[in-house]
């Protein structure tokens, strides 16, 4: 999670706001939360089109009128990038979508993405005052509505400040890098984003499926960041084509932001993991998403045609993989997870969508071996049933195997979605940086500065594996402190020393 210091305190520096929506609290309270129309489960599991259709004008305005415009506005502090939520919502209620869009843009370069993939139920909507006595305002759906409207009716980008003559290199073009790039470009700094793959977007392109986040939307959000003045270099692999010291010493960059994510897939190291039909979720989803393998043979990259699929893990990535497998024509897809429903890390909405589409939840089930035939093809997953014991170090109840409960789930495809680790390419080529024992870059949490002068870091390379919006919050915070650094307002010597001291503890 981003540091709380970075959130914009509600109302600070602004005169006490007037309520914009001409409705009494009672009238507002009388409106119920509006559902977002979506494709029927039976239909959507046969295509890759986006599941929800989004609000129309009437639904959006009605939903927006539910906002009480409460003076405390806890939703703003609940947003990792500090969007002035009551203001944008009020403008939706007033049908002034352009002003709503401008309000979003003040804080976020990627609203169409956040409106789709943020866990609002844990953030802005979790603290919404209306949620105390009923359902919170559907802030995420409204954000999506405004961002989608804006794509069709572009409002002017805020004018970037005059060039400062400073150059910042961003490594990684995922949500964190894009956010930092947008904010720094607005400040007048020259920004160059370095992306290892052939297309920018990071996890937004390779990880999140088309039916949850259409790639055309990601591309248009990236174009918006480019319009602010950021350049994107693709096929630029940090630690191979260039190193961070080279960027600073030879290529004239004044600061670097590392936002390379946690890209290395974790495997279970069970017998049979190299059988044909066992994939990391990263590989499966990268084929399907970045490489558009679901359109094979219109495109060249193949993906397996499965009949029965086991997806191991229960996070959002696991749900994405399971739902992708269904759309690719699998007869049966099961999530195999060793804990219970309560511990599943995926968003509730994602779990519900998966279940509606027919994904089976084989909970309290732990895989112990992949079984293959004489051709080396996967034919099943040997599993054992679990029960929950005492809480472990993560605070979740520890699963314990039940004796004699071994059984086989027949499947021709297994997709391992149990997490990722940071990529070691940067670590091995940047001597000053310090890393923790999990390979994460160590930073000063306040400024996001690392142990290497002028180098900042954020997103999953620092946090392990978190959410798109947390990565964006990091990017926003980093941009602010990189700007301060470029203005000569950061005491990096003290920061570097404090990080070094931490490693000696």
């Amino acid at each position, binding site marked *: 999670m981003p540091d709380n210091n970075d959130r914009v305190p509600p109302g600070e520096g602004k005169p006490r706001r007037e309520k914009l929506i001409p409705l009494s609290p009672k009238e507002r309270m009388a409106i119920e939360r509006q559902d977002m129309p979506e494709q029927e489960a039976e239909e959507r599991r046969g295509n890759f089109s986006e599941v929800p259709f989004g609000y129309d004008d009437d639904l959006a305005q009605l939903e927006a009128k539910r906002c009480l415009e409460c003076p405390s506005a806890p939703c703003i502090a609940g947003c990792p990038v500090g969007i002035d939520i009551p203001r944008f919502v009020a403008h939706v209620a007033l049908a002034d979508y352009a002003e709503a869009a401008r309000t979003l843009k003040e804080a976020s370069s990627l609203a169409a993405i956040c409106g789709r993939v943020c866990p609002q139920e844990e953030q802005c909507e979790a603290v919404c005052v209306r949620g105390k006595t009923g359902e919170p305002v559907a802030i995420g759906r409204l954000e999506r509505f405004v961002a989608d409207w804006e794509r069709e009716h572009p409002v002017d980008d805020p004018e970037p400040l005059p060039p400062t003559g400073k150059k910042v290199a961003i490594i990684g073009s995922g949500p964190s890098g894009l956010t930092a790039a947008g904010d720094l470009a607005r400040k007048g700094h020259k920004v160059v984003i370095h992306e290892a793959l052939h297309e920018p977007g990071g996890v937004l392109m390779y990880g999140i499926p088309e039916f949850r986040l259409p790639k055309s939307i990601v591309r248009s959000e990236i174009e918006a960041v480019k319009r602010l003045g950021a350049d994107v270099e693709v096929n630029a692999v940090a630690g191979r084509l260039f190193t961070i010291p080279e960027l600073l010493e030879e290529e004239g960059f004044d600061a670097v932001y590392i936002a390379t994510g946690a890209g290395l897939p974790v495997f279970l190291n069970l017998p049979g993991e190299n059988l044909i039909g066992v994939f990391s979720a990263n590989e499966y989803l990268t084929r399907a998403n970045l490489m558009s*393998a679901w359109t094979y043979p219109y495109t060249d990259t193949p993906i397996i045609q499965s009949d029965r699929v086991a997806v191991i893990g229960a996070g959002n990535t696991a749900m994405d993989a399971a739902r992708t497998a269904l759309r690719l024509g699998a007869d049966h897809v099961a999530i195999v997870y060793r804990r219970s429903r309560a511990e599943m890390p995926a968003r509730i909405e994602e779990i519900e969508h998966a279940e509606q589409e027919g994904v089976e939840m084989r909970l309290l089930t732990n895989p112990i071996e992949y079984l293959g035939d004489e051709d080396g093809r996967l034919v099943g997953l040997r599993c054992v049933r679990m029960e929950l014991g005492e809480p472990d170090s993560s605070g979740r109840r520890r699963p314990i195997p039940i004796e004699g409960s071994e059984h086989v789930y027949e499947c021709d495809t297994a997709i391992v979605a149990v997490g990722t680790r940071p*990529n070691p390419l940067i670590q091995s080529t940047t001597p000053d940086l310090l890393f923790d024992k999990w390979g994460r870059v160590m930073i000063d949490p306040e400024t996001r500065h690392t142990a290497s002068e002028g180098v900042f870091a954020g997103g999953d390379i620092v946090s392990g594996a978190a959410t798109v919006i947390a990565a964006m919050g990091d990017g926003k915070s980093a941009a602010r402190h990189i700007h301060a650094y470029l203005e000569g307002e950061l005491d990096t010597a003290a920061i570097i020393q404090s990080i070094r001291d931490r490693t000696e503890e």
Partner: protein
Amino acid sequence: MSHMHEIKAKSMLADGIVRLDVECPKIARKRKAGQFVIVRAAEGAERIPLTICDADAEAGTIALIIQAVGSSSKRLCDLDEGESISDIAGPLGLPTRLDEVDGLCVCVGGGLGTAPLYPIAQALHEQGVELVSILGARSSELIILRDEFEAISDQLLIATDDGSEGHKGFVSEVLAQVIEERETAACVAIGPVLMMKACAEVTRPSGIPTIVSLNPIMVDGTGMCGGCRVSVGGDTKFACVDGPEFDGHEVDFDGLAQRLRTYQVASKHECRLPREQLPH
């Protein structure tokens, strides 16, 4: 969005095997022996790993040797001089560790494996290592880089399946002969999985260090997909970041061969939607 990479020279090395010298100045400067690039010919093409076979830092070009086997490699082979490749990422993988060779080194190349073998042999030659090179193919006209190897090897031996040149049979059989006759310090063997396995078995009894270079299924080439995982000495390694070169005596070649057959034995998904319904 990406810088296009112009093809400066194209030559046919053998039937279906093409050499492209491609504009790629930064990689040409940076690359070291043993490294590879991921190439995407054009929009919609697969990302395929190709060894950087040679590089000219001054001209800013790298040499790629490609055999048309699938639709994406065919697309590359069909490109002409003056046309461009959309995406080239690299240099990827760890460079060859050369300092360990003290004495005679036998370089064994099978089929297209001769291409990735060349930069390693060249680097060894530049270090003054004595080289015996063994090149093999189905038949004589399919031997590639013959002149190049001739120029850097103290002895060049050929093996062909059909006996049209040199030894009739496998390169591993020639390798067995060489190490029996000559004190051998190291071996580098690159080619089809079965060939590398056979060579590793030939050198195993005498404990001659044997480097192999693997070319498994790969998508991104930066450690992200795990498609290139291979068991080496019982540990799972990623060929793209931990390799592509490994100790031939430790590699699980059977597992590697098995995974390479993924898209041959498993059926591939085929899109049933009309083309106009696809998003762009």
